[in-house]
């Protein structure tokens, strides 16, 4: 009996978010249940170098590194449904293997504005860049590019609102703006009146015949950083274990992204080639307090960091794909006020880089196994190889993927 009900429920869930069938023939209480999905994932990692060491020159950025050995990934529970004729709700909960639940996404979308307008509010992944709002289970590699892990702590999640407008043109032209708390790095998640971070983005895209399609994007991000603490930052005095610094200032990031896809006859089920790349440049300007644990010396600090990646994924036969990625970061040369000139490292004289190869197999669109090998040179003097095996499995309603 229970089984029968669950199946009916699932059948309803499967179609509910997508199509509201009048003639579905299901008229029980479960018909109004939202679409439910659960992603199960895990990795095995073999890393030559300690993943807790940050990329050289990026000790004040997040290090959303890797896990060694067998590791249950975050299980992701997704719920989505229309709320009423005007709104749709989406929530994604991340179940940590150590226990505990975090809210990854919880947003409401307008469905009745029309005129090409879409309003979203709540907690969402920012639409900046190309990869930022893609969920981890749709990534082409086990990990995010270095520029995403260091610049956005893998993905920029925001508490706030987003408004975007799609132009009524043959070509895809989308303009959007976001304003929010500044929850994710480089925002400092500080309670305050007004907004802590703002984003502007523009996307352009089209097809070239039936075999090729492309999208190009431009993003601007700005965040107020208030007493943003970084720990274990190396300094000129070679303090053991580094020191803690605090930064208050403005962070401005410009991003460019592109993706181009090719598929013979446009039949992506058979074979396709995808080429994508993104570039981000961040300008940070403000006051830095050196060694907050001790006396703390505050002076001006500004730096321009940049990073980019280019990657290509090729599905050479149904179910099998392989991909290559090259990553590179530039920590820049910091301009440091005189009082901290002998404390802080201005120039690391090193550009972190990494080359990655992956191979994955998907028995269906719901199950994926991936092997990944990387030559990681993101830490000065600590070159290392990384090997991963990953599985990603999706159960329940599986929403359509974005481009």
């Amino acid at each position, binding site marked *: 009996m229970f089984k029968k009900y669950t*199946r009916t429920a*699932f*059948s309803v869930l*499967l*179609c509910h978010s*997508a*199509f*509201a*069938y*009048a*003639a*579905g023939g299901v008229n029980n209480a479960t018909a109004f249940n939202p679409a439910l999905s659960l992603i199960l994932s895990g990795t095995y990692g073999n890393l030559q170098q300690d993943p807790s060491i940050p990329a050289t020159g990026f000790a004040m950025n997040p290090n959303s590194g890797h896990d060694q050995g067998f590791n249950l990934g975050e299980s992701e529970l997704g719920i989505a449904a229309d709320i009423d004729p005007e709104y*749709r709700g989406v929530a994604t909960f991340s179940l940590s293997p150590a226990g505990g639940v975090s809210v990854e996404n919880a947003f409401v*979308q307008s*469905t*009745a*504005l*029309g*005129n*090409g*307008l*879409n309003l979203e509010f709540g907690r969402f992944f920012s639409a900046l860049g190309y990869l930022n709002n893609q969920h981890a289970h749709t990534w082409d590699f086990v990990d995010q590019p270095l520029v995403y892990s260091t610049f956005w702590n893998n993905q920029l999640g925001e508490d706030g609102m987003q408004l975007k*407008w*799609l*132009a*009524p*043109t*043959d*070509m*895809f*032209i*989308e303009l959007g703006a976001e304003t929010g708390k500044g929850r994710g790095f480089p925002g400092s998640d500080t309670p305050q009146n007004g907004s802590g971070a703002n984003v502007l983005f523009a*996307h*352009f*895209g*089209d*097809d070239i015949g*039936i075999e090729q*399609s*492309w*999208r190009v994007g431009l993003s601007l991000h700005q965040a107020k950083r208030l007493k943003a603490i970084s720990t274990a930052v190396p300094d000129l005095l070679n303090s053991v274990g580094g020191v803690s610094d605090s930064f208050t200032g403005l962070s401005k990031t410009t991003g460019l992204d592109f993706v181009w*896809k090719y598929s013979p*006859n*446009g*039949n*992506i*089920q*058979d074979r396709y080639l995808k080429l994508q790349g993104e570039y981000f440049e961040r300008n940070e300007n403000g006051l830095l307090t050196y060694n907050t644990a001790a006396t703390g010396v505050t002076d001006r600090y500004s730096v321009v960091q940049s990073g980019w990646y280019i990657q290509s994924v090729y599905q050479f036969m*149904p*179910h099998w794909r392989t991909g290559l990625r090259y990553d590179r970061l530039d920590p820049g040369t910091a301009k440091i006020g005189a009082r901290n000139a002998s404390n802080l490292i201005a120039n690391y004289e090193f550009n972190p880089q990494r080359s990655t190869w992956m191979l994955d197999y998907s*028995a*269906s*669109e*719901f199950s994926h196994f991936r092997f990944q090998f990387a030559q990681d040179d993101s830490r000065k003097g600590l070159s290392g190889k990384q090997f991963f095996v990953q599985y990603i499995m999706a*159960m329940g309603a599986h*929403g*359509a*993927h*974005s*481009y």
Partner: protein
Amino acid sequence: MNFKINVAACGLSVFMAFLIPVSAHAELNVFACEPEWASLTHELAGDKVNVYTATGALQDPHHVEARPSLIAKARRANLLVCTGAELEIGWLPVVLRESGNTTIQPGGDGYFEAASTVRMLEVPTRLDRADGDVHAQGNPHIQTDPRNFLLVAKVLSKRLELLDPSNTAFYEQRFVEFDQHWRAAIAKWELQAAPLKGVSIVVQHKGFPYLNDWLGLKEVTTLEPKPGMEPSASHLAEVLETLQKHPARMVLRAAYQSARPSEWIAQRAHISAVELPFTVGGSDGAKDLYSLFDDSVARLLAGLK
């Protein structure tokens, strides 16, 4: 400051003027998910509509991406004509959401599902992903039975009248003509296809239940172990064994599918491999709805030899 705002507003309006095309007469913009519905809309509406076809005959209709171009086309559509029955579940929901177009959302007048007008076959009695790519509402490949077009056309024509009432008489006339011509064509095809009745076939994908139902073909087995899964070597060996016990005359596949599994079986079981256009554009002969069935019937008859 005011000056700045004025300049910005002025610049924006000039920019918008470039973006928004001025359309000379009020044609309906139709977004057809598959080529067969684009053709049917043409038959029923002639030059009263601009039709954009979202997918091609050589694309697997289950696997299409929500490309930026599709979203842009959906933005300006007055009517969406799709198969439904979850065939487009992998991409259409995203396209509709991102389009910011309220008129073509499910439940609205601008949203039309062909599958809702016909009798569905192969409606699963159990829903489990272990059974592969099954569709809760039944097999969505309804376009392989020409009789279904009569049902779809009737409802679609009414929908065109609803959206564009000033051309009601035109749509009514077009429908009557189509209905007449199409019934005559069906009678012709049925006569031609008489030798196919009761003929045993193998199919690569479960894409032809409506065709079987129409022509009385008997499906012995399927090359895909489960719907949507590639035929494996071990499964093909089983199919070969089945064919020794229950012989078939030909193996059918749609134009978008890989030829290899069909050819492999055809060689070993000494039967014909027949590639059907499946939709308009799937073969050189299938240029519109009429030639789609002319070509399909001809290919099936050739498969008997």
